[in-house]
């Protein structure tokens, strides 16, 4: 579709003026958003931004390197607990604790990457899944991490700036999200990113071309875990309270779902997927309070289903989205976007 003529065209940040224009609109929109939106929607935006961070990282691993991870909730938990514990027990400032916790998660990602070197397909899926479950179980037994009762996030102060509301946190979170997204986008266009893609497409061919499989596979796990860890550290301050049950297998599956629904192996896809499903997730949690359909669902539940199980509609919706996406558009939202663009390219002819 768009042909690259030389190397600089491949690595340049804004591939066209239109993209630069829309991106600057997006950044301005994000900056103005908390001034016009209600407080609840700022919270929703924070929640979505955290999903975006984790899913971008997961996409580097799953979409670009072609490895499966069903244990990202484990890294997420490591980041969340790491940040809070470093701040309360070791009195690290937030801006130091967050990357440190991210690095701890990255260390575990490196460790998980080692067995992953020899595994693929279902074997890798069950190994990472086991990791995710084990980590949260272990965290739930450690005394300074609050055991099963969980931990409260400490007050957040950066220099003179005291962040107490969702709005304040929004202005910290969004720049970090943008920074991490730009980093990921640039990483894909470097030697490392090209090595990842080569491993995904044909690992043996990549190895014969001189790509060090051991290095790059573990690096992909570590980078992805770092993103999840940073996302987790920020998540602790969105919720202000974390407990081991939060970081369940369901969460890992949700991250994977977001990446797939958005479109693996693209930069825009995971962002779209994380925003869409993150938003749906929050909305469907209190489905009975939604306008119009809430009443209808309530009546339906009372006559044919049960009211106690009504929150499970969320699962039905996500399950249907997943199946439908995989059956009709394996490239996800990104694939839909590409097709629409192609269709309208020559309009009105």
């Amino acid at each position, binding site marked *: 579709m768009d042909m690259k003529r030389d190397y600089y065209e491949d690595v340049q940040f804004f591939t066209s003026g239109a993209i630069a224009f829309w991106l600057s609109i997006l950044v301005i929109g994000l900056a103005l958003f908390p001034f016009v939106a209600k407080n609840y929607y700022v919270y929703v935006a924070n929640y979505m931004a955290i999903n975006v961070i984790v899913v971008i990282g997961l996409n580097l691993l799953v979409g670009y390197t072609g490895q499966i991870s069903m244990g990202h909730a484990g890294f997420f938990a490591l980041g969340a607990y790491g940040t809070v514990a470093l701040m309360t027990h070791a009195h690290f400032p937030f801006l130091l604790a967050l990357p440190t916790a991210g690095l701890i998660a990255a260390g575990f990602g490196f460790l998980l990457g080692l067995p992953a070197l*020899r595994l693929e397909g279902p074997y890798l899926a069950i190994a990472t899944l086991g990791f995710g*479950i084990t980590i949260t179980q272990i965290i739930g037994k450690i005394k300074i991490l609050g055991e099963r009762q969980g931990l409260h996030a400490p007050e957040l102060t950066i220099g003179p700036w005291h962040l107490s509301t969702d709005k304040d946190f929004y202005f910290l979170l969004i720049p970090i999200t943008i920074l991490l997204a730009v980093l990921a986008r640039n990483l894909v266009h470097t030697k490392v990113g090209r090595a990842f893609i080569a491993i995904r497409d044909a690992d043996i061919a990549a190895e014969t071309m001189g790509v060090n499989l051991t290095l790059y596979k573990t690096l992909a796990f570590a980078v992805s875990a770092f993103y999840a860890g940073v996302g987790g550290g920020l998540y602790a301050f969105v919720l202000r309270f974390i407990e081991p049950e939060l970081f369940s297998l369901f969460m890992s599956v949700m991250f994977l779902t977001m990446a797939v629904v958005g479109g693996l192996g693209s930069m825009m896809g995971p962002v779209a997927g994380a925003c869409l499903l993150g938003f749906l997730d929050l909305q469907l949690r209190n489905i009975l309070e939604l306008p119009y359909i809430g009443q209808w669902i309530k009546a339906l539940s009372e006559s044919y*289903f049960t009211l106690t199980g009504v929150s499970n509609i969320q699962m039905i919706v996500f399950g249907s989205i997943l199946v439908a996406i995989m059956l009709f558009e394996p490239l996800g939202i990104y694939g839909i976007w590409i097709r629409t663009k192609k269709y309208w390219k020559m309009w009105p002819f």
Partner: protein
Amino acid sequence: MVDFLQMVLSGIAVGSSYALMGLGMVLIYKASEVPNFVQGEMALLPVFITYMLLSSYGLPYYIAFPATLIFAFILGCILEFAVLRRAKEPNVLGLIIITIGLEMLLIGFVSWKFGAEQHVMPFPISTYDAIILGDIFISTLDMLTLVVALIIMLILFLFFRFSKIGVAMKATQQNENAAALMGIKTHQIRMITWGISAVVGSVAGLLIAPVLMQPYMMWDPMLKGFAGAVVGGMTSLPGAVFGAYIVGVVEHLFGGYVSIEFKSVVAFVVIVLVLCIKPSGLFARHYVKKV
């Protein structure tokens, strides 16, 4: 020593239900090359249907249980026919995602329909009965699980060895193109495999239901069965059974001697260790990719 034997025996009893789940997963993995995350829920829905037949419609056991198994067979066939077969450009990740999607769909439906609370499944055998052999005692339900699991394994063995469909299944798993050229309808065979797998899973579900019956009841057996199957090598039926028993026994021994708290996660540590040494499991021949 008595403690040890007791733990091993309980482990084997629990391992039996894992083994049934593992067998179901391996059957499907061999046929469709997909780690089937919907295995647990293919059993969950039939179990809740049985519950409905027994407690709401008051049907006797000898009608309800066979009806469940027939329903499970049809459910498995429908899932393969309507969803898995329609997948575009299937790769491992895509198929995993589809099965996870189906799993969420079914579990969401069941918990919406029946609520999140614990139900009590009517069952011919009380869960409090126990058989006592010397100093060891084992609950009748566990004993029944063990016996049923062994019977199912025997039936599967005979089925694959002597029945026409069973042999056709093996042929399809070994080489699909060659099987199709020999006149086997491979699509149909794959569909039947899904049905059989759902039946095997449902038997496990029916045996678990008297102890624990709520929408998430099949999660743990499914994951442990999967773990067992991976230890055994995903492509070997005896391997899956053996792996599942290992998982059950190790879990109980670990719970008894080391720490009861980490009992449920030790299975995953075991599989990671096994996979580090033998990346394709204990019983499968290691598959080396050719360029």
